[in-house]
């Protein structure tokens, strides 16, 4: 045990930090893009507050296109774009761009489902009280959707952690990379097990926190 920690402790710690960095930075950026995108998709739907068939269809097609590309392919496919945005295609910075591009449309879809669950009657009630559209979006739509938004973001985070495992391919590092490089390629099987257990624990904790938080907000 001691020996294992002495040998791999630093590497694992560094990997965990990298995973955390990749996940949190891309998650934040993906949320900043994904939530407004999801709101836009819902609001431009026929019959909604900003109904616009053309805009709605365009958003839908864009989201579908990006969502149909597997992450591993997206990673290489957008190399020129990544280089243009952050100036490099390797390391933690290099992987953030594809991770965001992968996660943001996913979050947008999850937000769409979450927001569509909000009772249209409440929106109507606020309209009848003379509230502005912006007020209704923020104080009714997003507020009432919070429990589902939290569940959706938990889901997105878990899938994001999975995607970071592929980050090793562009030198992004992280826990998944350690499991692949040392565990699989160099036959350090115990290390691979440890990484897998760490990832399982991480996902369990995340999902539990997400579920509890959502249930707390739901007030049923």
């Amino acid at each position, binding site marked *: 045990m001691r020996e294992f920690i002495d040998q791999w402790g630093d590497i694992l710690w560094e990997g965990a930090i990298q995973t955390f960095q990749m996940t949190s930075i891309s998650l934040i950026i993906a949320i900043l893009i994904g939530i407004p995108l999801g709101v836009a998709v819902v609001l431009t739907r026929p019959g909604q507050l900003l109904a616009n068939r053309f805009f709605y269809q365009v958003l839908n097609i864009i989201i579908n296109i990006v969502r149909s590309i597997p992450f591993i392919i997206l990673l290489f496919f957008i190399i020129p774009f990544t280089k243009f945005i952050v100036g490099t295609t390797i390391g933690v910075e290099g992987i953030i761009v594809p991770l965001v591009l992968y996660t943001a449309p996913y979050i947008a879809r999850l937000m769409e489902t979450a927001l569509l669950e909000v009772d249209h009657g409440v929106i109507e*009630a606020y309209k009848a*009280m*003379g*509230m502005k559209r912006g007020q209704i979006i923020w*104080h009714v739509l997003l507020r009432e959707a919070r429990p589902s938004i939290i569940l959706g973001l938990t889901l997105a985070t878990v899938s994001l952690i999975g995607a970071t495992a592929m980050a090793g391919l562009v030198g992004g590092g992280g826990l998944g990379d350690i499991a692949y490089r040392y565990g699989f390629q160099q036959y350090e099987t115990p290390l691979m097990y440890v990484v897998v257990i760490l990832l399982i624990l991480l996902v369990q904790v995340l999902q539990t926190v997400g579920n509890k938080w959502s249930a707390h907000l*739901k007030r*049923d």
Partner: protein
Amino acid sequence: MIELKNIEKNFVSNKKVVTAVRDVNLTVPAGEIHGVIGYSGAGKSTLIRCVNLLEQPSKGQVLIDGKDLTKLSASGLRKVRSKVGMIFQHFNLLKTVTVYENIAIPLKLAGVPKKELGARVQKYLQIVGLEDRATNYPAQLSGGQKQRVAIARALSLEPTILLSDEATSALDPETTDSILDLLLKINRELGITILLITHEMNVIQKICDHVYVMENGSVVEQGSTIELFTNPQHATTRKFLNTISQRQLSDSLIDSLHVTGDVTRLTFVGASTGQPALAEISKRFAVTPNILAANIIELKNGIVGNITVHLEGDDAAREQALQYLEQSGIQVEQLGGLVYA
């Protein structure tokens, strides 16, 4: 005051134009409670949603206190809307916040100063009788309590008009009564004008001054509640009245009453309910009234009594008796025609 002038609303579905409301005219003077009754699909919901332009009428004018809403800018319309409260069948509360916040959030958004907020919320919670429920969440309340919160939310913006879209339709009869009492109280104490739609005749009976009966998008009959209860003209109105007290007797029912001759319904309104009319006719004319059924309906502005009688006696005596009754202000109506056993 609410005035609807020649309101028409068309919907286009599958390239076909469906007219939900056609040429409806309606005036609710300040301080009165008017009700629109109709079966589902009659267009009453569309009609009430035209009043605050949740539904934009295809034709016609909507005037609130003389101001034509269809000509207002978006911000002008919002301003009017904040003074026209609305309550709904399914309450439409925010589920993720407390009762207090359900009332406070719209107030905050409407720009009510922070220091007045608490007192304002308390005041209206008290009016609806839920002052001890401020920290509860909607899921912890009964249907009637949720509707009370919705009413408090609507009232807290201090409107002069309240629109009620089937507000009691999801509630049991006892809760319905308590909500109707509350609506009557806010009408009397706060002077709020109310326009409501319903499919329940007892809602009309208990709180309305004036009724509109709607069918296929048109108002087929209207009048004061007493007029409608005593002298209904349209078949639909009669059908609704039947839900309160059976007006039409079926042939088999008359048959089973084992009577020969006319079955007559006598309707008494207000003052005439005090007269001993039947005793009088049996004394004056050679007829014997046989009471088959009787009931009394308490309306918001009066009392209506009904007696279904079978008169025994020869034709001339019966005719004289009925004439006498009509002259004493009692409405006489033949039911089921002549029946011979």
